[in-house]
């Protein structure tokens, strides 16, 4: 199974600043290994974030996002104690969901 994400959600005024670190190889499909064979593409192509179960962000990612990507965004109207969920799906069909509490 994929390694867990690190999610921080900090309240700043009427919005929550969310910072997410995802553990993923993010192979672009362009690189070759030491034997000269193409390393098959393997990257996160779908990211979703929820606030108390309601979707607030969806993103379609491509192969140019870095390894172990860092994502930062703000959610308007979030309050302390709200649950921020982030989940991703990759090109192999693997997925990972984690949750953090706004503080």
């Amino acid at each position: 199974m994929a390694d867990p994400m690190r999610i921080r959600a900090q309240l700043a005024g009427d919005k929550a600043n969310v910072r997410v670190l995802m553990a993923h190889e993010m192979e672009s499909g362009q690189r070759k290994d030491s034997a000269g064979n193409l390393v098959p593409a393997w990257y996160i192509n779908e990211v979703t974030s929820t606030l108390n179960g309601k979707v607030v962000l969806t993103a379609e990612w491509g192969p140019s996002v870095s390894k172990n990507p860092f994502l930062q965004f703000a959610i308007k109207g979030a309050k302390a104690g709200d649950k921020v969920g982030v989940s991703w799906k990759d090109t192999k069909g693997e997925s990972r969901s984690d949750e953090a509490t706004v503080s």
Partner: protein
Amino acid sequence: MNRKMVSALAMAACMAFGLAHAQKTSVQSIEEYRAMLQDGNPAELFEAKGEDLWKQQRGPKKVSLERCDLGKGPGVFKGVFLELPRYFADTNRVQDMESRLLTCMEVLQGFNAAEIAKTPFGKGEQKTVTALATWLAGESKDGKFNLPQQHPQEKVFYEVGKRLFFQRGGPHDFSCASCHGQDNTRIRLQDLPNLTKNPGDGIGFAAWPAYRVSNGQMWGMQQRLNDCYRQQRFPYPGFGSDATIALGTYLGVNSKGSASIAPAIKR
């Protein structure tokens, strides 16, 4: 004050501001870039993994590392990073964080230490050692280095490390000190700390393990020092070799009193 004067003053202020803006040196720009990276340091992912690996029952013996003695007694993990490398009576040798972890993995968990030491960096159980070292370094973050130098072996390792640091060799005939022996120098955009004395908080020895943004790899001190030898066009002395531990001792003792920022983030 008439209107003309006000606008002239405003102009002057603008120019002064513009000048100050233009005066931002490349070093400052790099600092800014680093500060931005620091906010989302992926080393945190490795810390989380390391903590998990510490508590997990693993290896042929299916036990956790929670009884591992890293110098302050079995199971103590806070602050141990600041006092390594040090002499261990049970193995009768000076060990650094990573080689000591390997000992624990062999004695407690039943792994084959020699086998893991031969594994290339970033592969198999080497990844475990790096993640553990990253987490343990994080548990001592902001603490000050205070390597013990009482045992004769610890003094020997310091002296050997010092000599290795100044030993010139290889096809380019240079030593560690060729690049790290003067103040205020850099290679391209990388500052070169002077490691022959205390380089200060979070520099040199105090910044590893670190995450390398450019290749997305987490490096421990053993890989860092082995790679120094590669840059010198020498073969790797090897994981946990006496040479790399001696160099670590030399750098660590020099950093006495400096704060650790590990796990850090690098270009």
